């Protein structure tokens, strides 16, 4: 019972933070869209039909109702908020399809490459770090540590095009575009994994190399623990603590950062949908996407906080603290 209470006391404020971030994101986008000069609907219709489009005022009013852009700003603000909470993000101005439906269609494609990219990036970062850790010579270690920064230095459109020309056109192993088969996700995932893995590597490897000089690793060595076990049992989890924060940030980045890759590889996805929506000044879609990314971002951070509790017993809830009081432990 006390455990449940302690968890509730820990999680409820975090949940509050989560809701606050989502509502604040929504508010910010709403304010931006509605207080920018010009009528958003007219701008969207102009983008759709060309600059000389003539619209009948009565027809315009009907369209306003259709797209949920009628009524006072307060009505719109709260109306959309309540609708969004019920899963209704309005209708796209440029395509006429409900935004929720558009997102539901594009989202899996983005998730596919984003999670693959995360898998590739993190795995290779851990692998290179282990090799550097186990490297018998200092020069080899230095060399290995210098590789990943390239991943940040090379922009995605360049690495993407290079991968296409080698693996799709020259070798013909993988498709260069589309999103129909699983194969097609590999090249974009690798492209995306380069910067993601490199950023993760920077934090993770320095955490590992720092932990390597710590007294508890000395204790493990003096116990006779072999290097591989020291890495997996002693270093990995300790180095995960600082790394998991950057992992949360990276997932947030991936939620919105797929635009370039999806454009280069002509894939459907959230990123490409956003680019199109911006070009068409389709405010309902933009609002929906921003709200989605904001929610994912806040959710991931919530999960990171919870994960901390699982990995690090010092931040764990309940149990530990009363027992400490019982011990009357000294510092």
């Amino acid at each position: 019972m006390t455990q449940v209470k302690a968890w509730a006391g820990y999680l409820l404020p975090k949940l509050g933070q989560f809701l606050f971030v989502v509502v604040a994101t929504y508010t910010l986008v709403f304010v931006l869209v509605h207080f920018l000069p010009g009528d958003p609907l007219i701008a969207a219709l102009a983008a759709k039909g060309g600059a000389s489009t003539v619209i009948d005022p009565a027809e315009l009013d009907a369209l306003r109702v259709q797209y949920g852009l009628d009524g006072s700003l307060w009505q719109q603000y709260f109306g959309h908020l309540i609708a969004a909470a019920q899963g209704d993000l309005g209708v796209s101005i440029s395509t006429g399809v409900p935004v929720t439906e558009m997102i539901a269609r594009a989202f899996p494609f983005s998730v596919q490459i984003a999670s693959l990219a995360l898998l590739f990036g993190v795995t290779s970062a851990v692998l290179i770090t282990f090799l550097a850790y186990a490297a018998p010579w200092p020069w080899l270690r230095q060399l290995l540590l210098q590789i990943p920064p390239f991943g940040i230095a090379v922009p995605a459109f360049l690495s993407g095009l290079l991968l296409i020309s080698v693996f799709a056109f020259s070798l013909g192993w993988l498709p260069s575009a589309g999103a129909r088969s699983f194969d097609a996700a590999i090249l974009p995932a690798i492209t995306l994994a380069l910067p993601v893995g490199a950023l993760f590597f920077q934090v993770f490897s320095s955490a590992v190399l720092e932990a390597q000089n710590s007294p508890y690793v000395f204790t493990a060595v003096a116990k006779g623990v072999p290097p591989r076990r020291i890495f997996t049992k002693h270093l990995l989890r300790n180095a995960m603590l600082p790394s998991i924060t950057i992992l949360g940030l990276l997932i947030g980045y991936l939620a919105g950062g797929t635009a370039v890759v999806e454009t280069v590889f002509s894939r459907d996805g959230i990123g490409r949908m956003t680019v199109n929506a911006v070009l068409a000044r389709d405010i309902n879609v933009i609002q929906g996407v921003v709200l989605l990314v904001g929610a994912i971002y806040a959710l991931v951070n919530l999960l990171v906080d919870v994960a901390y509790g699982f990995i690090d017993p010092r931040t764990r809830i309940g149990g530990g603290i009363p027992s400490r009081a019982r011990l009357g432990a000294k510092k």
Partner: protein
Amino acid sequence: MIEHGSGAKVGSGANAVDEHTTEVDDNILVVRDLHVSYATRSGSVAAVRGISFVVPRGKIVAIVGESGSGKSTTSQALIRRLASGGRIDSGSIEFEGRDLGPMSERELRSIRGGRIGFVPQDPSKSLNPLMRVGDQIAEALRLHLKLSKAEAATEAVRILAEVGLPDPDARATQFPHELSGGMRQRVLIGIAWACNPQLVIADEPTSALDVTVQRHVLDNIDELVRRHNTSVVLVTHDLAVAADRADYVAVMSNGEIVEQGTTEQVLSAPTHEYTKKLVESAPGLASKRLTPSLTVLGEQQQSSAGKLFTHTRPAQPAGSSTASGAVAASAASSGADAAEATNILEVSNLVKTFALRRQGGGSQVLRAVDDVSFVVPRGSTFSIVGESGSGKTTTARIAARIASADSGTVSFDGTDVTSLSGEALRQLRRRVQVVYQNPFGSLDPKMSIEKIIAEPLRAFRVGDRTHRAEVARELLEHVSLSPTLAQRRPTELSGGQRQRVAIARSLAIGPELIVLDEPVSALDVSVQEQILQLLVDLQVQFGLSYLFISHDLGVIRQISDHIAVMRSGKVLEAGTAHDVMSNPQHEYTRELLEAIPGQRAK
């Protein structure tokens, strides 16, 4: 039995040991002419320079030395695991007749933890924070004894019981942060002894612990040694610990063993200069209060001290600080001016609480200082002794008006200063100064020594720049530092020199009371003694009163006129130094006194 190094006269070298097969069997470890160096940017630096010693089976050999003597490097070399950049240049380490030097890492791994255990220095960092302590012991058991998971877990609990942890079943499932420092060190001792090794290397196993805990942990090691007939290499900076626990002592200085022999030999009749100095300055072994040196007393009569300090009141007459605490108190009161209060500082009924916040709501109140009262007679030294968490530092901070109390009063020189604030409080700082424990953290690394010392003068706009520089130089002389150091930075100075600078800074503005918060506990013993002597001399020269905080009764004994013993925020016992030391009333005080290492040497 123990081999004598370059500094000793008796030459029964390792070769001589080889000739007697019976003796070879008796020596578990034979180190011959070991050289270790570290690669640094400016080339290779020798840390251990040709040491030789043997460890007989079932005996404790202490390696004693101050910081930088190479003793920790030696301990790490014995399991061939040096810090990065370190390498063994030459020499041999024979463990049970086999040289560890040419062994492969794989062979070494079977020896480390299996046949040579290691107890590291810092219990707060030497356990993996994310692993249950039972698992950390079981890890060694599974590796070397090939126990199954369940067997190892059961055995780990038995080991925890053996090293004296109460309730070992529950402890085994706890994480390091849930245990106290002493318990963590016991866990580490358990790891070292887990696979019943022939040799255990203990590198400063108790230096980070409170003195009463240190005693229990060392007792525990003694017991394990007896029960398992283990040999131990005990690395320590504390000669008194070595005196109590070791059969043989090797004294290291500058990477060399300058003297070795049986503990009785080395301690009762040291032959090397360095050993003599070390024996003399060990606070656990010395038992007298320091008296002002003769030169200071002579100077005092000519009243040459403090001639530049025109902004301060004239120095007090000498004689207010003498050997006996009781005399000091009365002398101070009789020697004081009529206008000045007898007691420079009076605190009464101080209470300070901290709310410990617990996650998931609820809080717990910690009474860090609980109804503490004491008086500091003018011109004398009042010491508060206590272990970590006793509230001694918080009390000192309140007395110096750095922290504020929840209730109670602090009066300085007869005036209530409890609620001073703003400019009035700032002016109080002219009369009350503080010297902190850590001479590395308390000096701004970017400032020159002269600037550091003159800073209080600048803050109070005393004199012009040249005058301040002159005062700084004079103060450097008073703390026995060369005035040529004036333009150096703190990083170029040793720990002892830095603490002298900190003391000089506290003197600059001409205070009457100096609060000394563990001023020597970060220093080597031989330096400790010098600093304490300096403090005693300065007290006479400038007529200072000290509020001295320390965990070390050995140090307290050397400097105090009055002593208060604190535990859990309360003063358990207070009185003149002589009374508290020779006739302790409270059981805890007796326990503290008994825990001072060096009892066996007396």
